[in-house]
């Protein structure tokens, strides 16, 4: 900092370390619990890892728990399909839509722009029943398309790309036109490569968004084959008269955290960029 104040520096690091402990504590205990047997969890409060790690994770992945008919392995697959589907789907159609709105003049252009904007004000939570009915009418319940399609049209990605495209110098476009390149050529050869960093930033945000979906899969999947991991974890808790398989639930929770956290840590720079830019 500006001057040398040892005590303040000590306090700084102390608070930060305390902060990290506070944040990490629930995750640590969850991990520890996932390495013990159920009896050990219900009879004591383990603070150190136990010896059942492989066994618990194997059971979670291949058998699942309680009345939830799907294995954690299957549910992870479903979550992954949904997350990647939403991520790539959203990036794809947003790129196209932003490109159209920025680089073309056509009737209804502003109308479409505002229509897309409105979706920001219509999160799924305010239209639960009617959206469910639409999906049911289209026979998309209990399907991957039902999990993915309704979620790929929201505005944030489109706006991000639009903003980025606006900063692309006009000279590039002019040069391309002079060279005889059509709009599609321009898009693929020039615009897309330039958008790489925005795409990467969005990839992180959208993957987390897609993986962590809860309300939507809850509404439209009743078939165990299509359960996503987060729904499965909740259903494992829902045992009513039985005993919740805490060690499996914790193992499943840890597994649920790994992909998005992994993405955030290894693409941290893009993640930070994505967060600060999409909130504009």
């Amino acid at each position, binding site marked *: 900092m500006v001057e040398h104040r040892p005590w303040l520096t000590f306090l700084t690091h102390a608070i930060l370390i305390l902060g990290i402990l506070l944040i990490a504590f629930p995750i640590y205990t969850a991990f520890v619990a996932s390495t013990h047997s159920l009896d050990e969890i219900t009879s004591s409060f383990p603070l150190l890892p136990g010896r059942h790690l492989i066994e618990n994770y194997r059971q979670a992945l291949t058998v699942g728990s*309680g*009345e*939830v*008919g799907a294995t954690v392995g299957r549910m992870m697959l479903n979550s992954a399909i949904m997350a990647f589907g939403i991520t790539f789907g959203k990036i794809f159609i947003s790129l196209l839509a932003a490109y159209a709105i920025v680089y073309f003049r056509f009737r209804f252009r502003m109308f479409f722009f505002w229509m897309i904007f409105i979706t920001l004000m219509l999160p799924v939570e305010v239209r639960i029943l009617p959206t*469910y*009915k639409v999906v*049911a*009418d289209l026979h998309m*319940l209990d399907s991957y398309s039902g999990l993915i399609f309704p979620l790929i049209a929201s505005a944030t990605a489109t706006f991000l790309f639009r903003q980025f495209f606006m900063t692309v110098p006009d000279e590039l476009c002019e040069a391309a036109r002079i060279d005889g390149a059509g709009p599609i050529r321009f898009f693929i050869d020039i615009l897309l490569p330039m958008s790489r960093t925005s795409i990467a930033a969005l990839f992180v945000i959208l993957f987390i968004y897609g993986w962590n979906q809860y309300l939507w899969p809850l509404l439209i999947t*009743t*078939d*165990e084959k299509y359960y996503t991991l987060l729904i499965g974890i909740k259903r494992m808790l829902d045992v*009513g*008269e*039985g*005993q919740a398989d805490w060690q499996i639930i914790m193992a499943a929770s840890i597994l649920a955290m790994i992909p998005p956290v992994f993405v955030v840590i290894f693409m941290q720079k893009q993640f930070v960029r994505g967060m600060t830019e999409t909130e504009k």
Partner: protein
Amino acid sequence: MKRCKWMLIVAIFVLVIFPASVMAEPVVVNWWFAHGGRLGEKVQSIVANFNSMQNKYKVVATYKGNYHDTMTAGIAAFRSKNPPHILQVFEVGTATMMAAKGAIKPVYEVMAASGQPWSPDAYLSTVTGYYTTPDGKMLSLPFNSSTPVLYYNVDAFKKAGLDPNKPPKTWSEVADYARKLVKAGSPAGFSTAWISWIHVENFSAWHNVPIGTKSNGFGGLDTEFVINSPLHVKHIQQLADWQKEKIFIYGGRRNKGNAKFSAGEVAMYTESSAGYAGFKKTCKFEFRTSMLPYWSGEGGAPQNTIIGGASLWVMAGHSQKEYDGVATFFNYLSSPAVQADWHQFTGYLPITTDAYYLTKGQGVYEKKPGMETALKQMTLNKPTANSRGLRFGNFVQMRAIMYDTLEAIFVGKKTAKQGLDDAVVAGNKLLRKFEKANK
């Protein structure tokens, strides 16, 4: 010559038998149900047996989630003009299903139109009463029904010097026993599951007092709740007061409290008879069941208890051929062997007298006396207008109101009288709303 013979046989096979079997494509009947886990597997095996016994109809059973999910899915499917043939709906949804006259086909109509022999008298009236019109016409087929009983911890009884062969019959006895159990080291006396179903709805039927006017709603949509009667107030207030002596502790909603019994936190527990299988797995001590306690000298106790669980509704909009399939399947489900097997596997009540006697004849009840408790309790007396069941619209929401009310009473926020009075006002609002929407 021999070759000709063989060719003839092959020709006959190819030209006659093969097309004949193809022509007899089984009619598909879709059944949406709400049992997961072991129960779900049992449902599928019943269906598989039916399908393998004949090839005219094929029942396809699909698990749609819990009762809420299944009912919502069924309704959504109806609205998309694509309903299943059979839908399993929990008992509190009965009024909603009944009022949806264009969406359902009453079971008695389905059975009559199919021309198959079928007798409503074969069914246990206390089980079917819930799903029948006041003049005896069956609207839906009971499938899994249970009734609340008292479970008690034999080991804890012995430790407290109580005779396990003499479980408490009245609530006063329950309190006495509870005090002795607590003295002998039990953390608390008793707890309960499904508190509204057991301590308000069944409580009323067991004491032959009404839950609502118009025969608990059977007689008309203009019914009103009367669960704030002096007897109800007395019972709920008593439960609230007993908490101070740890005679009673509240276990949470639905059957979250089951862990308290199996962990030995309470020595007595009122829960559905269907909880038997679960307790068998989780309780490491000996336990037995007995009939629900009652207040001696109050109302007409003991009368009979009412059922909980679900029934099978037939949805409208299908062809007569498909309904014939439904009728055939229902007859199969009601057959003594199938019912007896389902009853013994799940602990749910058998729906026909034949199944009851079959199970009795097999000596099952001697080995598991607890299973007969529920039946005996239900058939103790012929049902009265107060004890056939209930039929209230929007009852799912009423159950939620009851949970809120009872929880407020148990933490001392309201007295029993205040809470029940408020619940009656809120509940009647719901009933009026339902009445209006279904005029």
